[in-house]
């Protein structure tokens, strides 16, 4: 084992994937200069130089600021023999290429009757919680969950970031990976040897008996912190990190809820049609008889993200909100005390 940052783990996964398969190329804005720190040689930077020196300009390609053609060309390249990793930097930039994601990446294999395989990975970072304002703070993974044909991953720690990205590159279908910038600096143990984490297998980040908390992306460390606090109050919380939203490990969540009888979902996306909304629906349909309390969602309210730290900080799921939700579903807190947790924020 070695200790690595989330960002370092992504860089290591990209390096391993580039070394393992010559068809892997990295395409994106500023990838040559290793601006985001994922296309560099890390500790051996001095000896080896960055990816550009290691793999050459044919495989490490800076792009113009043209998301539509970056995404479309990566799809076309994937349909004809390459396995591109596309760095789109900010998740909000994905909208510039929406047609290519929805009409080409997601549909080409299906509508051409299986003739195409589209092995391409689209990486993007969600800069929420960092005072970057409304244009940079989006958490848009639920929009893409609504597009059949795409795979969606949301790694929450360095170990998962590395293992899931290796699997993403191996996938013959388009994969979108959403990285929370709040997690970039987080450190964790990562094996020295290569490993891959299968999609559709949730990680039980903490076992518990009273309440299941399904947490997504940066909500995972918050849920773990909440669980620790709640343990002191005698409440045993199980924290499940789905790791991949498409495919989604329904079974792991159902199994847990059947044991605990209570479900809280912490999802940094906007509330309406969030991943949390979908997970709530699945559990309501498939495990209703196990539920001893209403399912609670802890999400970002349906408002845009303001710039001022005084305004932004309160919006995302944090340990306090998760704790309160758990107290409510366990009856430790009266329902009336904290209506803002469940009621949609007024849109004025």
């Amino acid at each position, binding site marked *: 084992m070695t200790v690595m940052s989330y960002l370092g783990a992504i860089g290591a996964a990209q390096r391993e994937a580039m070394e393992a398969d010559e068809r892997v190329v990295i395409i994106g804005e500023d990838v040559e200069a290793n601006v985001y720190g994922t296309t560099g040689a890390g500790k051996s930077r001095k000896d080896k130089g960055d990816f550009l020196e290691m793999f050459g300009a044919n495989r490490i390609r800076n792009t113009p600021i043209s998301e539509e053609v970056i995404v479309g*060309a990566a799809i076309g390249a994937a349909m004809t023999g390459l396995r591109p990793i596309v760095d789109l930097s900010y998740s909000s930039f994905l909208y510039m290429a929406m047609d290519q994601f929805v009409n080409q990446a997601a549909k080409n294999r299906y509508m051409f009757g299986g003739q195409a395989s589209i092995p391409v990975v689209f990486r993007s970072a969600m800069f929420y919680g960092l005072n970057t304002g409304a244009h940079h703070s989006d958490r848009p993974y639920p929009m893409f969950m609504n597009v059949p044909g795409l795979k969606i991953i949301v790694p929450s720690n360095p170990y998962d970031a590395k293992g899931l990205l290796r699997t993403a590159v191996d996938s013959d279908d388009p994969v979108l990976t959403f990285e929370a910038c709040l997690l970039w600096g987080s450190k964790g143990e990562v094996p020295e040897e290569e490993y891959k984490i299968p999609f559709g297998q949730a990680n039980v980040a903490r076992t518990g008996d009273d309440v299941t908390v399904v947490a997504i992306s940066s909500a995972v460390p918050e849920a773990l912190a909440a669980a620790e606090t709640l343990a002191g109050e005698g409440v045993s919380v199980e924290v499940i990190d789905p790791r991949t939203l498409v495919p989604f490990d329904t079974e792991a969540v159902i199994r847990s809820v059947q044991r605990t009888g209570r479900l809280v979902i912490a999802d940094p996306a906007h509330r309406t049609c969030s991943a949390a909304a979908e997970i709530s629906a699945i559990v309501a349909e498939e495990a209703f008889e196990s539920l001893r309390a209403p399912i609670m969602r802890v999400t970002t309210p349906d408002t845009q993200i303001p710039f001022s730290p005084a305004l932004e900080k309160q919006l995302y799921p944090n340990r306090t909100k998760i704790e309160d939700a758990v107290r409510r579903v366990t009856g430790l807190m009266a329902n009336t005390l904290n209506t803002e947790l469940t009621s949609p924020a007024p849109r004025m």
Partner: protein
Amino acid sequence: MDLSSQNLLEMQRRMLRIRRFDERASKMVKRGQIPGTVHTSIGQEAQVVGACMALGDGDYMSGNHRSHGHPIGKGSPLGPLMAELVGKATGVCQGKGGSLHLADFAVGSLGESGIVGSSIPIATGAALSSKVLGNGKVSLAFFGDGAANQGCLYEAMNISGVWNLPVVFLCENNQYALSTPAHTVTSGVIADRAAGFGMPGVRVEDGQDVLAVFEAVTTAVERARRGEGPSLVEVVTYRFNEHSEGLRLGTDYRDAEEKAAWVERDPIVLFRRHLEREGIATAEELDALEAEVLAEVDEAVRFTDESPYPDPSVAFKDLYTEPIGAIA
């Protein structure tokens, strides 16, 4: 341009295939035998075949909603194409694509697109893969005068220029985006836009002349194959039918005289005259060729009629390369 008699006859054969296939498809739409919408290439055969035959068998292309001509021009067999139009299991896309989304990877057809301009980046990406893999393949993006005003074309031209990609941007300027005359929504000349990206841009004024199209596109393809980068070729042509089959607009947006003048310049009739005049083939031989193509279309329809519809379970297939769990 040194073309064997065999190639010249093949050009005529492919133009005839497109014409007779689309004529039949048009009839089948009117009889209710083809569901959905169909856009024919009737009148544009020279532009399509001239471009397709400038490509090699292994080369790639992508297209648009006026979709049947492209794979036919690239050599795709008619049976699975017709079966696809009807939605049969033996369709080239197993009945999942239909007229708007034909693709035949076996002939390098990476797919037609129902979204105007959307397949241009796909062809650009195919050119990127040939460049990175060094396999010498060229890629061609078909798009209309309507798509010439989509932003993705210019993103694609720019990135192809800086990456020196082996791609040909082929604008099929049939002068109307549905009812909208191209000149009323297009500033300047489409071919001239190439200059802004430092690539050659040529305009084939007579897109009804298959050899003129072939020559212009061959120049672009050869340049791409030599590693000298992308080109833009604009071909001026005309569709003889309505925008889509069965479409009835209250207004006639095309001048009758203009239409008659273009219909007079039927690319198949013109090329037949050329073949006879140059002694490439006799009238009898060309009649026989026409009969052969008609028989091919008949056979494609017979194949379609005899084919089963897909099993309903096929609706849930091929979304992913391997099933990822139950589909809700």
